[in-house]
């Protein structure tokens, strides 16, 4: 085993839990979170030599995790739009069915939970910066300073983002339940 691989193993061991849980906050699904975390570490392995120590290594890794998670959500959104378009046209989408059936996993606390779906939908309507700041603030282990470093902004900006995200989320959920 090369020294690069050894140090990489140590790096994974040190950060895997935080990375998986960060991704899980965004996607609400364990399997997707693990897949995303794998992508994150692959990216880290690929560009570790290009890492300039302007930020902490952990901050850099979590930034990659956030970017990958947001990309995943965007892809999901596109897929949803496409499958609903297919449904309108009248073409069955077997992939969407498989994805839906995978969602009913009783081992997961959030998946299959109607409220979780509503919450995720509402979260997905928020701007990326608000969503990221809010979700990271809800996760244990991230201080406002760290969130600011990940988002490359100031602590006060993070506080403002979190505040606005809370308000927006409340309004969206309120509007949703009022319509029911």
């Amino acid at each position, binding site marked *: 085993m090369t020294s690069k691989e050894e140090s990489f193993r140590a790096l994974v061991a040190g950060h895997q839990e935080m990375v998986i849980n960060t991704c899980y906050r965004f996607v609400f699904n364990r399997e997707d979170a693990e897949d995303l975390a794998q992508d994150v570490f692959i990216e880290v392995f690929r560009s570790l030599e290009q890492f300039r120590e302007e930020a902490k290594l952990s901050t850099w890794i979590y930034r990659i995790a956030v970017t990958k998670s947001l990309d995943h959500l965007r892809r999901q959104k596109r897929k949803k739009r496409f499958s609903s378009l297919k449904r309108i046209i009248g073409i069955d989408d077997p992939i969407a069915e498989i994805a839906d059936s995978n969602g009913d996993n009783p081992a997961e606390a959030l998946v299959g939970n109607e409220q979780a779906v509503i919450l995720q939908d*509402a979260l997905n309507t928020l701007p990326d910066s608000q969503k990221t700041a809010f979700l990271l603030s809800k996760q244990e282990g991230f201080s406002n300073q760290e969130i600011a470093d990940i988002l490359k902004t100031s602590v006060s900006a993070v506080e403002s983002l979190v505040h606005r995200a809370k308000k927006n989320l409340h309004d969206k*959920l*309120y509007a949703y339940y009022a319509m029911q």
Partner: protein
Amino acid sequence: MFFTCLSSQVMKQELMMKRHNNNIEEQVAKTMMLLDEIQPIKVDHHFRVRLMQRIEREFGQRSEYSRAGLRNRFDFRLAFMALLIMVNLGYALLSVQHNNLGKTSGISEMIDNLSDDYPSQEFAYYDQTSAYPAETVTTESKTP
């Protein structure tokens, strides 16, 4: 009587609205609470094994690809060089051939010209004399 009835109805409606709003607020709060209730997930012990396998697969393949790419590039360069050499050789051969053709055509042209310039019978004499050089010299020397 009418006013008391109306006001009680309005109050009832307000109460219902308030209750409805409270209900919505409760649902909103409950939904938002989900984020606080999310328990951190434990990492599967196969996670790192799978990750290292994937890295081995992807980056091992990539280095093989890059090696193959280098080989291909090298082969391409060799082929290109061979092609250049062949083109040069071909050009050289053609130009040599062209020069030779020019020379041979020049000689044959000269011969033709000569035969055109001296077509008369007198020169047959020279032809004959060329066969007997001693005689020719004597006749020529006698002429003047």
